[in-house]
């Protein structure tokens, strides 16, 4: 077994890296939505894709579903994908 301080340092790093990614995806989405060169449909699809990725990061790492029961992890992931797909199909 690894020493606890080493594990804690690694876990902290993962949590912080996840936060950087989440904030980066948010800034990227805002920047994209302000772009004049893209159509509404492209912006909607890409920003919802970013939201799906953010949802997976929150569920998988912050909520620890990547280490949770496989059935729950699959149900959560499947729901997020299904919801995003449905939104992309419905939205103009």
């Amino acid at each position, binding site marked *: 077994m690894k020493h606890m301080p080493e*594990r804690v340092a690694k876990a902290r790093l993962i*949590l912080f890296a996840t936060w950087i990614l989440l*904030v980066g995806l948010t800034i990227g989405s805002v920047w994209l939505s302000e772009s004049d060169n893209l159509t509404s449909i492209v912006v909607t699809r890409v920003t*919802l894709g970013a939201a799906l990725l953010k*949802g997976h990061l929150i569920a998988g790492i912050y*909520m620890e579903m990547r280490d949770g029961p496989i059935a729950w992890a699959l*149900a959560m992931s499947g729901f997020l994908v299904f919801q995003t797909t449905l*939104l992309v199909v419905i939205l103009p």
Partner: protein
Amino acid sequence: MSESLPSNTPLATRGSEERTRELPGGTVIWIFVALELLTFGLFFIASADARRSDPTIFGEGASRLHTLLGAINTGVLLTGGLFVAQAVLANARGAARSTSVWLWGAAASGVVFMGIKLYEYADVLNMGVTLSTNRFWFFYLFITGLHFLHVLAGVFFLVPTAWRASGRAYGPRDATTVEAVAIFWHLVDLIWVFVFPLFYLGQRT
């Protein structure tokens, strides 16, 4: 050398050989999470359907929202999410003071979020907008209002947990409460990451 950890030790500090695929925070909070995601999911689909029927009204409504404030609030919630995740980690190593500080930080992020949101609501109400103005404002006020109540509930859960954590009420062998509160806060984050693009981004008149 191998040293086994109690079954209720938070997953964050376990090695890969010790993963037991348990639900952090217990099953009840996860059933709640599932119901909440389904409920908000239905509201998202209903608002998307309304937007497809009337893209002009949705475009006009979205153009009156503060994208920058929405983005800042997203960052505030995500930072609160980082804080509660750090609290779970601190609790797993028995650091009572750190656990408490991180939880207070998360509660503060919730208060900041609500302050910014109330400013946005005041701005919208000053424009004479109500729930019955049109379908954009109905869905925006209803969904963000419901989410606002969840943030408020999250702060009400975080404050007593932070208070009790400072008195060593929790720890590596009693992590369920801290984990359950953290899961609730992450749920609030998870819902918002879909609210933000649906109402603030990508709608043009």
